[in-house]
């Protein structure tokens, strides 16, 4: 909302208040002032009368003038084509500061020039506010301009505009009158608004019939003014409109615009001769093409509120009138329309048409139900005073006039309890007086009458807000809540998530956060298949149409971004939700690792991010959460996704629950073509979180020496070392402390289809010293099992 200080001054005394003070007071009362703008920043201007104007002896376009500026007569060389003797003009005196230049006495082609005669552009008036004639030359002031006077004051350019950002509950302040009342309350000073209540009550019997066949129009007022005289508006109206960037057209059109600025209520004036039927009906079931006031043709569809007379369309309700009934220079009488329209209808239609007119913007706000009546009163009063309104007919009314005011009882106790303050009944009563809530003290309580324009006030806390914003938040003493103690902190799942983050950053991984909304290609290829993606009904773009169903595709694109920016070493993880229909949610962890990470260039040391490293990370994370190798299983990745190398990836299980996939990315992927072999993983954290980990139990350090046995085996390629190790544990029982692979070899010396595996078994007893013979027997049992179940051959 723009606030003209000059306009505001016509309602209240502001002589002791600078714009900066006003800004601070409004902002701290909830009307945030975002900017202060001066009409024209120029200084050193005066009004002059051109006494003589002769051609410059040495130029074919310059003129030499003498200008009376009251105190003296100046010689000024002027280049404007329209300068002439007898004109009242704007003179920039020696030393004047204009937006573009500082004026100094000078000699122009041999002729003395003691100032400058200015155009509006030169003093800083925006081109959009000027006519073509004004843009083409110097500004010629009207005859009554006082010589030696201030041209900015004369033109209304000495104004200061405050740009106020209003909260949605105070949409009443989008109009001058309620805004002035609000400022009066904030500053605690009287506000005098024009009194025109009941002005529309005059008029003889009317032939006009107004009605609505649509739900979205609760009130429609129409009034015939049989005769008006079109002429220029009085100066104050021109200036008022000007301060809001509205160009003056003629008195009648200007009044319509002025009333909207004053009351916030859009009005529409029709040429009465264009509506001979004297019947106006609002409908919402029409489909047709229609040419509006701006000369463009728009399509209306059922649902749009349309103004009609008989079979004829005469306007998009609340948005724009029609071209064929607008006020022209030939107009001799008018029909006034003042109506309320449903904001949702107006928003829908104006958005579809791309027509955000001033009226449409006003209608999209919450409006006070009584505004149409107030606006009609004001229109009639102004038309009587400035447009010689005659042949006035009574107002035709559709809808029931709402009763305006709400009564509320309150006391200081409620507010002090909510705010934590110590205000007296007198103090809060004074706030309500300032707000014009007409407080009447009744014993220990006060009765308030809430004006209809304050539709935001209905319950006690609304009043608390009024009290604290006018008396100031500094009256609140800071305390901390005193409550029954309850345990706070993170939930167990949240603690596990934070633990995982710490473990991964400890492994050297960088956390990233990607957008959750993705395009179709991400959805077509999930890390594993779970169901349909959640799709937006109103996406901003195809790029962001679906909520992601896996996190890995996002991480791959993050990795591609790094490659594009010449960073070929990365180790990234992301934790985020995935969704799939119907309303299923999983929290996921995804990891991606570049093929290696340099540790020391000169030592040629690097981390090799091969399959076994990503496997190690996954095992490490699970182990940190209490799931050791006896519960975590890496199995063949049978659910072949787009992402993983079929022979270098594993499906991960915790007991029998599927947790996700890890391994090397598929060689066909673009990222692998660019960056080489990459390790990656995606895990279902929700499943991990819901699994129960075993508690830590201390076991004494063994007091007896252990025994080791190494086995060198040949087994078929198809047999897995993991299964073989498990078989050793199972067969060996609790004496097998550890069984691990210490060599894997294929190639020369090993038959085709076989692999050579070296395994070290560590035997340990916690009860006695092991006897070699006993271990030999046990080892043989293990070997027999391996020979039987794994077709293992012992190498010698």
């Amino acid at each position, binding site marked *: 909302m723009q606030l003209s200080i000059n306009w505001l001054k016509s309602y209240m005394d502001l002589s002791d208040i600078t714009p900066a003070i006003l800004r601070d007071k409004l902002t701290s009362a909830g009307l945030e002032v975002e900017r202060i703008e001066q009409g024209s920043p120029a200084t050193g201007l005066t009004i002059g009368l051109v006494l003589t104007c002769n051609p410059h002896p040495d130029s074919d376009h310059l003129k030499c003038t003498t200008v009376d500026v009251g105190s003296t007569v100046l010689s000024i060389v002027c280049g404007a084509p329209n300068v002439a003797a007898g004109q009242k003009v704007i003179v920039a005196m020696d030393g004047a500061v204009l937006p573009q230049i500082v004026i100094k006495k000078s000699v122009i082609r041999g002729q003395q020039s003691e100032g400058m005669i200015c155009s509006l552009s030169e003093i800083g008036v925006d081109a959009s506010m000027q006519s073509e004639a004004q843009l083409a030359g110097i500004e010629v002031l009207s005859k009554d301009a006082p010589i030696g006077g201030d041209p900015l004051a004369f033109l209304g350019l000495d104004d200061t505009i405050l740009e106020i950002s209003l909260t949605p509950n105070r949409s009443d302040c989008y109009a001058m009158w309620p805004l002035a009342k609000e400022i009066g309350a904030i500053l605690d000073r009287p506000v005098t608004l024009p009194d025109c209540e009941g002005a529309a009550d005059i008029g003889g019997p009317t032939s006009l019939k107004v009605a609505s066949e649509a739900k979205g129009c609760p009130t429609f007022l129409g009034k015939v003014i049989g005769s008006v005289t079109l002429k220029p508006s009085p100066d104050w109206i021109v200036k008022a409109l000007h301060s809001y960037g509205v160009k003056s057209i003629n008195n009648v059109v200007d009044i319509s615009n002025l009333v909207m600025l004053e009351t916030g209520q859009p009005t529409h004036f029709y040429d009465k001769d264009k509506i001979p039927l004297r019947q106006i009906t609002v409908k919402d079931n029409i489909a047709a093409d229609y040419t509006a006031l701006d000369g463009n043709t728009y399509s209306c569809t059922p649902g749009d509120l349309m103004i009609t007379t008989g079979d004829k369309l005469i306007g998009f309700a609340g948005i724009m009138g029609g071209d064929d009934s607008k006020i022209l220079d030939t107009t001799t009488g008018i029909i006034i329309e003042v109506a309320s329209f449903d904001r949702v209808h107006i928003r829908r239609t104006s958005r579809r048409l791309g027509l955000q007119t001033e009226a449409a913007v006003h209608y999209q706000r919450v409006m006070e139900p009584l505004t149409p009546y107030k606006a009609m009163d004001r229109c009639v009063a102004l038309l009587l005073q400035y447009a010689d309104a005659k042949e006035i007919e009574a107002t035709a009314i559709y809808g029931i006039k709402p009763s305006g005011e709400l009564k509320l009882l309150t006391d200081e106790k409620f507010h002090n*309890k909510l705010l*934590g303050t110590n205000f007296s009944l007198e103090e809060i009563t004074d706030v309500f007086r300032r707000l014009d809530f007409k407080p009447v003290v009744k014993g220990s309580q006060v009765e308030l009458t809430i004006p209809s324009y304050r539709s935001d006030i209905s319950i006690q806390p609304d009043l608390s807000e009024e009290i604290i914003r006018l008396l100031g938040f500094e009256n609140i003493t800071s305390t901390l809540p005193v*409550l029954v103690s309850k345990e706070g902190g993170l*939930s167990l799942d949240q603690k596990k998530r934070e633990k995982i983050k710490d473990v991964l950053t400890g492994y050297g991984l960088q956390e990233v956060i990607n957008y959750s909304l993705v395009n179709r290609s991400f959805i077509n290829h999930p890390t594993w298949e779970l169901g349909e993606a959640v799709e937006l009904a109103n996406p*901003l773009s195809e790029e962001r149409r679906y909520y992601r169903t896996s996190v890995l595709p996002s991480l791959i694109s993050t990795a591609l971004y790094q490659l594009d920016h010449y960073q070929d070493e990365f180790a990234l993880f992301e934790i985020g939700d995935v969704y799939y229909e119907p309303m299923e949610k999983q929290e996921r962890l995804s990891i991606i690792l570049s093929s290696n990470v340099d540790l020391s260039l000169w030592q040629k040391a690097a981390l090799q991010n091969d399959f076994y490293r990503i496997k190690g990370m996954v095992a490490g994370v699970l182990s940190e959460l209490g799931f050791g190798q006896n519960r975590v299983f890496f199995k063949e990745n049978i659910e072949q996704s787009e992402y993983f190398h079929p022979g270098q990836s594993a499906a991960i299980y915790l007991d029998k629950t599927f947790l996700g996939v890890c391994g090397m990315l598929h060689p066909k992927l673009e990222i692998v073509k660019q960056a080489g072999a990459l390790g990656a993983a995606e895990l279902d954290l929700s499943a991990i979180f819901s699994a129960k980990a075993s508690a830590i139990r201390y076991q004494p350090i063994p007091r007896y020496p252990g025994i080791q046995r190494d086995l060198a085996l040949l087994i078929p390629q198809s047999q897995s070392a993991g299964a073989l190790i498990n078989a050793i544990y199972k067969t060996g029982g609790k004496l097998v402390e550890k069984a691990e692979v210490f060599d894997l070899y294929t190639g020369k010396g090993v038959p085709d289809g076989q692999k050579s595996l070296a395994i070290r078994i560590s035997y340990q007893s916690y009860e006695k010293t092991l006897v070699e013979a006993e271990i030999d027997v046990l080892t043989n049992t293990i070997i027999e099992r391996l020979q039987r179940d794994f077709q293992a051959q012992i190498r010698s």
Partner: protein
Amino acid sequence: MQDWQAFKQQWETACDSIAERSDLEKLKVELLGKKGAIAGLMGQMRDLEPQERAAFGKEVNGLKDYFTNKIETISQALENKQLQASLAEGSLDISMPYTRIPRGRLHPVSIVRRQLEEVFISMGYQVVEGPEVELDLYNFERAGIPADHPARDMQDTFFVDVQRLLRTHTTAIQTRVLEAQSNNLPIKVVCPGKDYRRDDDDATHSHQFSQMEGLVVGEGITMGDLKGTLELLAKRMFGESRTIRLRPSYFQFTEPSAEADVSCFACGGKGCSLCKGSGWIEILGSGMVHPNVLEMAGIDSSKYSGFAFGAGLERIAMLKYGIEDIRNLFANDLRFLAHFNRFE
């Protein structure tokens, strides 16, 4: 008669010429070994008269002790020399680059979230999360924003269908908490999470962002409690000398509502480019929970009151670290992320 002096002199010379450990071992055998020179002298004892033996033995033992010590000293000297040589040989150019220990880091938004969580956990708040694909009911209706309310315009929403949408604010978590804990008061929670609004991405807008909201409901909760809590928050996040200022504002969820500004941590309140000359920086919205919101959750608003506040995590990260463009926080450029690398 044995010439003790000559014997000692001869072996003394031999000892002094030793330079290598192998020579020393050889000399040790020749002199002190079973068949060495000293043993030879001992052998001569048999041929002596008994009364001469004691004096002779004393001389021989004296020489044995002397040379045993001498050889041990030489041995240590040689060892020391060898050690010095190997240390000299093993000296490194310690100015050469170290082996990099890969370091991982949290995303700056996670860092800010953790810091805020820690502040509130220390005051006994629970941390509660909720779904991002949310029901209209919890995101709007229960937050006091019915279908045709203008406040919905402020929050352009991504809809999935008639009932479901992407959460536009973490207030949706609060309305769930209110419902779930209406019979288990007081409530003292912070609710962090991602939100989505139908905004075009630019330097200051993002269709995805994160918030953390706080909610306290109990008997006798006042706006003073809110102010005190926000003051503490401002000090922990932006420095102990910070103060806050409340300004009236409007949120559907709260009444009265207030915007909280923190005194500018760049200029201390004198006015600078960060605070646009005002000395204050807007950090969050807050207010007293609207009685209708309590009632909708089944909480008696005549008995209980509460406060709520909500801060944008990206905004706080941007203010704290001087990040100009919110899109940096989602581009995940490693050169950008590498900045957020140390204890604060």
